[in-house]
């Protein structure tokens, strides 16, 4: 009996090696290990043996069964993998062809830049504030210390709806509206569309601006420099030089224009910076105390700074766009580049 079992094992192992496919393997597995297979058949005669012999034979038979099962399994695995491999070799697609895309649009570059700027200033502690685009002369000019007949009105040629209603020429009216309805500290950033009666390669009658205002106790010109330096480093990169030049705005005193080192030539001089190495990017200053009179703040207690910049200007510098009009032509060949 033992010999029979051993020879069954050896024969099976031998013929396993000769098999060539999964089907014959499966047949052989049934023939040897199936319910009516050779091993089972052999074991049926076990009852004829003495109990002590039975146990030894049974143990051997079981070992042989486990051993053969695992040989069948590994042989079967080999056949499956071999088959898969053959199939893989037949299947081939051109992976260089474009993928299946459903349309994917782009956001307008000015809105993207605005969002980036809001994020930077939000991180510096500013809150967002917005206001109407059609505005009262009072908020757009008077309360910003620009009386009628002031030459500063020439700096901003205005669209009028009536004597006292205008298209806002800057987002500064939002500052007045915000201060009117809240007490310091006021820390706001105001993005939005503004309008001036001007159209050429560097002027669009509608454009976008973002302005900031910070009013609290003990705010100084040094703080303005700090905040704007932090902004330039964050947005244009650490190491970009900037300089503050005295200037004039009716709503700030002292006033400063801020130049950054030309991002195109790095400051050595090129056409973009008119060979000066510097690019003017924003106007700023300490809030003129006259404004506090309009909103009921005490200028002896509070001080603050304000700044504003054109979003197109920032986008033009960031991406090297030469003509402001391209932003509003809405040509998809332009829009899809950003």
């Amino acid at each position: 009996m033992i010999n029979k079992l051993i020879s069954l094992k050896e024969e099976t192992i031998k013929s396993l090696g000769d098999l060539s496919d999964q089907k014959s393997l499966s047949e052989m597995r049934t023939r040897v290990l199936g319910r009516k297979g050779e091993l089972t058949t052999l074991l049926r005669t076990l009852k004829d043996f003495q109990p002590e012999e039975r146990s030894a034979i049974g143990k051997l038979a079981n070992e042989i069964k486990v051993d053969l099962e695992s040989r069948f399994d590994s042989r079967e695995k080999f056949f499956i993998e071999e088959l898969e491999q053959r199939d893989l070799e037949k299947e081939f697609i051109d992976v260089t062809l474009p993928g299946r895309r459903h349309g994917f649009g782009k956001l307008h570059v000015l809105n993207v830049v605005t969002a980036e700027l809001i994020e930077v200033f939000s991180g510096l502690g500013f809150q967002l504030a917005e206001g109407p685009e059609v505005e009262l002369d009072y908020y757009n000019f008077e309360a910003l210390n620009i009386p009628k007949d002031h030459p500063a009105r020439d700096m901003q040629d205005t669209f009028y709806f009536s004597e006292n209603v205008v298209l806002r020429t800057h987002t500064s009216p939002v500052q007045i509206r915000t201060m009117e309805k809240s007490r310091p500290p006021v820390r706001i950033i105001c993005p939005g569309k503004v309008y001036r009666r001007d159209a050429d390669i560097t002027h669009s009658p509608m454009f976008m601006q973002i302005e900031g205002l910070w009013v609290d106790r003990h705010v100084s010109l040094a703080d303005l420099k700090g905040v704007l330096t932090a902004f330039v480093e964050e947005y244009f990169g650490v190491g970009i030089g900037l300089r503050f030049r005295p200037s004039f705005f009716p709503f700030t005193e002292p006033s400063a224009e801020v130049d950054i080192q030309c991002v195109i030539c790095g400051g050595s001089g090129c056409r973009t910076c008119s060979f000066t190495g510097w690019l003017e990017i924003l106007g700023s200053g300490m809030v003129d105390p006259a404004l506090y009179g309009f909103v009921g703040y005490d200028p002896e207690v509070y001080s603050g700074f304000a700044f504003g910049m054109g979003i197109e200007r920032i986008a033009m510098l960031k991406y090297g766009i030469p003509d402001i009009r391209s932003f509003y032509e809405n040509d998809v060949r332009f829009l899809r580049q950003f």
Partner: protein
Amino acid sequence: MLVSLNWLKEFVETDKTAYEIAEHLTMGGIEVESVTHVGADLKTVFTARINEIRRHPNDERLAVVQVGLRDRVEEIVCGAPNLKVGDIAALAVVGTELAGGLRVESREIRGVASPGMLCSEKELGLGEDSSGILILDPDTSPGLPLGSALTYIEDYILETSVTPNRGDCLSILGTARELAALIGARYRKPAFEINETEENIDSLLSIECQAPDLCPRYVARMLKGLKISPSPFEVRLKLYRAGVRPISNVVDATNLILLECGQPLHAFDYRRLAESKIVVRCCDDGEVFVTLDGAERKLPQNSLMIGDGKRSVALAGIMGGLNSEIEPLTQDVVIESACFERFGIRRTAKALGMSTEASFRFERGVDPEGSFWAANRAAFIIQQLAGGNILSGIIDVYTNPVVRSPVRVRTAKVSGLIGTDFSKDQIVSYLKRLEIVCNDMQSGEDAISCVGPSWRWDLDREVDMIEEVARVHGFQRIPISMPSGKIKPDRSQTLYKRARLTAEIMKSSGFNEIVSMSFIASGLCRELGLIEQDEKQLHIINPLTEEHSVMRRSLIPGLISALKRNLNFKSDSLRLFEIGKIFTPVDGGDLPREDLVMSGITCGVRFPDNWHYNRGEVSIYGKVEARPETDFYDVKGAIENCLDGLGCENYMFQTSDKGFLHPGKSAMLHANNHSLGFLGELSPKKVREIGLTGKIQVFEILLEPLLVEYRKKVVFKPLPRYPHVERDLSILVETNCSGDDIKHLISRLGHDIISSVILFDLYRGESIPAGFQSMAFRIRYQSEDRTLTDAEVQEVHSHVIESVSKRFGASIRD
């Protein structure tokens, strides 16, 4: 303003280069926009004396001119009308490149060799005159390069951009004074001495000022017996380089003084002043006046005029009159050196649309204390240029002398606002450089009493003085610090972020975002049917063009024009959207209502021209199309994505009656019984009217309510724990049957065990009777608390079949 470096250096002692000076001025607040090196390229142009003039043998219009240089003579062919033996001219030798780009060559002109060219001002780039050759002053030595003979020719021109508060820097002297203060150099005003005749001005002229509030000061001087002629070359060049056209010596002298010290002057021909009188007064109502540019102008009310005994002779501070201008035979002149009030001049100039060198300066403030000096300076220069006698005496009507009140400047306030510590001495030393008078306060507090100079009308508050301290100290030297304060959580961006989220969702639905102008042509919205004929629009009084004359009441016109532009450039399948404001006039209100809307437009095919899609796509309506056009459902899907992404619920789409849309392929979006907007296919008639073809989808929805109000509160729902069963229901219904209605009916019949209903097939065409369509719904049955039995599901499903058949006249298909 164009500032000549040579001129500037007459008044300030410095060795700094033009570029260093430009840097100092810019960093001090007088921005120098450009520095131009001029007159340096005339190395091959020589001074030459005209020795002899012969007629050209072959052309009577030309002359052969023998000119003498230092040690040689040349014969030059020349056609200029102003040749005169003994004059000193400018000879460009062979190889010279002239201002117009012409290169001087050695060549024969009608048979006579000419090894050079006698040049006009214009050809040398030294003026505008091209009527004849340039004649230099008679004492110029011949044979020298032009630049060595006349050292003032080589120069640097600084173009300054002066802010409206710094009218005092609109002159060479003013710029020099500022530069001197900024770099701590010495500044000197020109010194001169006047020789007067015995005859006194009072016996010849009287001045009456009827409007002292508009004319604080009026100073006049007189000269007699002068001779009008062109100014010498140096004067003409100074004016030319400052951008002022030279005219004749007297007028040039007034312009020279204007540029030198910023005081606008006017010279009247004395003999043309009726009754020997000057009257400063406001114009008559409706008065018409001819200015010396020949223009007839209707004067705005209250314009300040200069009159003589009978009529107006000048538009004060802006331009003289044609009736009293200096003429070639003028001998006696009255020089006006007046200070006019800024706002008055600005009102008149603005109303007339005029801006002159004079009005520009008056609008920005002229120093009333400088008028007297300027009158003397003008008399002196005019006499130098045109001869004649200066009458003794000056008429000076100074009704309201300017008084600058002292300003208290506290040391602590200066340091606090600038953000760095200044000592009192430091502040005083800075302010004194600007000629601000500083005194200790009598109260003994840590402050200074400051009085600004007469030319600085902008220094009447403490903060104005603080700015001056910061400016002279240098903004660059102010340290950097960060403001401190309590930071609050930022809740200000919620709406903004939800609007940008909406844009992101549209972007992932394939739409490109545009930004179009908020103003459009006035007829557009009506023509498109976006507003009714009688609905009001907000009109701009002074639009740039008719195309931009009303505030938009819809974004659709902007989208259409963007679509058309792109189609012109052969981009054919387009999906565009915009988020922006529309403007609706409000009765009785000053300001319009501004609503944030989102609108979009599409045309062309759904999928790009790509290999994946071109094999054909089975349309829900049974046709096979290789390149399916973008349709209603593409747009609706994009909007549904937004509504879903924004967490909006309780909305529905209903049929629309918008006339500009296809009646069968358009809808209104409603939420809580409010209409939020429309979507649909533009009617074929509108498509034709706007000059396009094909199917165009548009939509416009009010965005703000979606961002604010219709926001569902999210509450977690546990995941189903029991399995679901799906049953399909395929029915034949009439084509006007609403799929949404069927779906809602099924859902309502659900007895809590229908968890979803999806329309998964819709078919019209072959094997379906005309006027009918086949619809197939997949109904999912699921309970939250048990596994459903077949019998339970079957009972509800049968009820569904029965109800749908009854309600919609549907027949069940297998």
